[in-house]
């Protein structure tokens, strides 16, 4: 008689609630490696968040704009369309426009966009800053203020600015995204620092730093696997937090996502290819252990959601 050699899990990923009211979403809570349902539970299946930008993107492929063409100049309408037409469960508002290396929009201008988006949708929102420590320290604190009561996930928090943003997030009761550069120990250290600051366990999410397909995906893949291994089998309680991957921007900016079939016939249809570059990467992150993946194209998202459903469904 064959007996499955099972892993003895000693830990459980903490559950974190995003958003408020009826459409709030619980993530995490798993007691096994991803989709290893023969030896544990995934009470909350992994979720996909729809990416929305704070301004009209000027460098997107036409086939990325296409599903949102009527709303892409209006972040609130864009977010609403994600929810109403594409049934988004989570919105990830990417504050690209505030980036000092880019458009460098002033804080209050961006904050008013955040406010509009928050008011336009009833699903949970993740607000993703610029990854510029100084700008985010100011910007994300204001975001925390204007989103009071909405339980909005705010990040990325780095070792440099976690105190400023973390303290404000505690005051307004928002979850935070602890961001570390593809390193288990640094991830753990930042989570400890956040705990010391007073951020509650059910308010911490891990941003492991996400690499795109062909551009360092394997680093993220292995760091996520190691995070989950530590949390689930090595009683490392400071790594028992859900993982969020900000994937879309890493995929859609690459050369291989921009070339058309005319540019390089061997790469095939550009729209389908980019959708598959995005969804194959998302599958890799989910299989490694991501709890939330931020994605761009509604068709990639639909494909990945179908896969999540099949990987977690009982019976043939």
């Amino acid at each position, binding site marked *: 008689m064959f007996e499955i050699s099972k892993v003895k899990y000693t830990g459980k990923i903490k559950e974190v609630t995003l958003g408020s009211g009826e459409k709030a979403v619980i993530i995490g809570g798993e007691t096994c490696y991803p989709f290893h349902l023969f030896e544990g539970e995934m009470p909350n299946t992994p979720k996909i968040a729809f990416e929305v930008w704070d301004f009209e993107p000027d460098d997107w492929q036409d086939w990325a704009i296409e599903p949102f063409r009527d709303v892409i100049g209006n972040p609130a309408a864009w977010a609403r369309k994600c929810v109403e037409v594409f049934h988004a469960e989570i919105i990830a508002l990417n504050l690209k426009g505030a980036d000092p290396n880019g458009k460098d929009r002033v804080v209050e201008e961006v904050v008013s966009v955040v406010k509009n988006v928050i008011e336009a949708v009833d699903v949970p929102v993740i607000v993703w800053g610029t990854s510029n420590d100084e700008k985010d320290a100011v910007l994300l604190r204001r975001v925390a203020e204007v989103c009071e009561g909405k339980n909005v996930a705010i990040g990325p928090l780095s070792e440099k600015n976690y105190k400023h943003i973390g303290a404000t997030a505690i005051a307004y009761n928002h979850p935070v995204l602890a961001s570390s550069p593809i390193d288990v120990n640094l991830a753990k250290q930042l989570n400890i620092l956040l705990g010391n600051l007073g951020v509650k366990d059910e308010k911490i999410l891990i941003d492991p730093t996400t690499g795109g397909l062909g551009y360092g995906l394997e680093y993220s893949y292995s760091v996520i696997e190691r995070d989950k291994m530590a949390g689930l089998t090595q009683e490392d309680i400071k790594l028992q937090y859900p993982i969020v991957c900000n994937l879309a921007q890493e995929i859609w900016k690459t050369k291989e996502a921009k070339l058309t079939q005319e540019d390089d016939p061997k790469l095939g249809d550009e729209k389908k290819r980019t959708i598959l570059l995005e969804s194959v990467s998302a599958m890799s992150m989910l299989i490694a252990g991501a709890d939330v993946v931020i994605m761009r194209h509604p068709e990639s998202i639909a494909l990945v959601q179908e896969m999540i459903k099949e*990987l977690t469904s009982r019976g043939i």
Partner: protein
Amino acid sequence: MALTGIQIFKLLPKTNCGECKYPTCLAFAMALASSKAEIDACPYITDEGRLQLSEASAPPIRQVSIGSSDYEIKIGGETVLFRHEKTFLNQPGFAILISDTMDDAEIESRFEKVNFCQYDRIGTTLRPELVALKATGNDERFISLVKKAIEKPYGIVLICPIISLMKKAVEICKARKPLIYAATTENVQELGFLAKAFNCPLAVKGNGIEEVMHLTEQLTAMGVKDLVLDTSSRGVRESFQDQIIIRRAALVGKNKQLGFPTITFPCEMTDSLMKETLIASCFVAKYAGIIVLSDFKGESIFPLLLQRLNIYTDPQRPMTTEQGIYPINNPDSASPVLITCNFSLTYFIVSGEIENSRIPSWLCVMDTEGLSVLTAWAAGKFLGDSVGSFIKKCGIIEKIEHRKLIIPGYAASILGEVEEELPGWEIQVGPREAVHIPAYLKMWK
């Protein structure tokens, strides 16, 4: 289970003859234990000792070869469950399905696709390597498929339920070492003999894991060693879990009957090529040896080849790009010159963004031992003197008329040092992030 040096020593003749090039049997035993020597170097070991040693040193998952010469692939041979524990060794092979129901043009185009879908990527070519030829009742056509396949260089999987027809097919392409698919409880004896007679790898198709184990046990007893497993599950969840259960049984449970690579069939699990690609991506990550696809299209196979490249990259080795000058978008003597480190990811991203900009440029890649710009700078490997002497020696000066150099934004603090090292040059500080390179180059003067 691996033996210790002392355990191996007990099996050796203990004569210290030195013919193995080690001074003593004990030294040789220690070298064997750390895989630095081969047992064949000892001419005096008994057959029994050799058998014990080779059994003990057999990898927990057998490595199986399919195909020949340039397109020979190895699958299995893996020793870990997670790539970070060491590395994954043998990439899964991608096969395109070609069936005897297809018309000539379709068949021809499918063979052509294996050749067409090849992609150059720094120091390597990404390409699928197998054709899966399927018999569904048109015997003559199936045989003509096999004949066509041996005119091409690719590895072959023969999918055929009729033993006599399989025999004909194997006879035609035996030199190619095709994978015979598949031995079942009904035909295990016959196909076992066939595989043994032609020395070809044999797939085993059982209804579930226990039946697969039963079949491999029978075949191993017959002396057929190169096996590939199929548990028959075609649901996404079951099939994915089977891969994990099998790998774990072989590595953790030391289950010899499951110590073989697997074959998977995304082509039989959905009608949509998009979804099929995602199913295949699960098998790339988790443990398939062969992945049979219904079709190869650039848009579907390319993402899978990239994913396979990433997952099978050795995490123990830093990824580096060769030091040198890389011309992008056909630069001339007036084109801008950028310098960066030789960390592969940096190179990929920087060169990709320069290409995106469509501005002809020279990219100088300096050896920083695989460190990124910021890390290399912190480690003292991306400083004024090293950048300066590299620019003087690398040959870029002969290619350009101007004397301007763009250094990465993250290395802005070495600006003064580089200016000192390169008198007469205008040193310019580029953006910190590669994504801003196109905008920067468009404004460049």
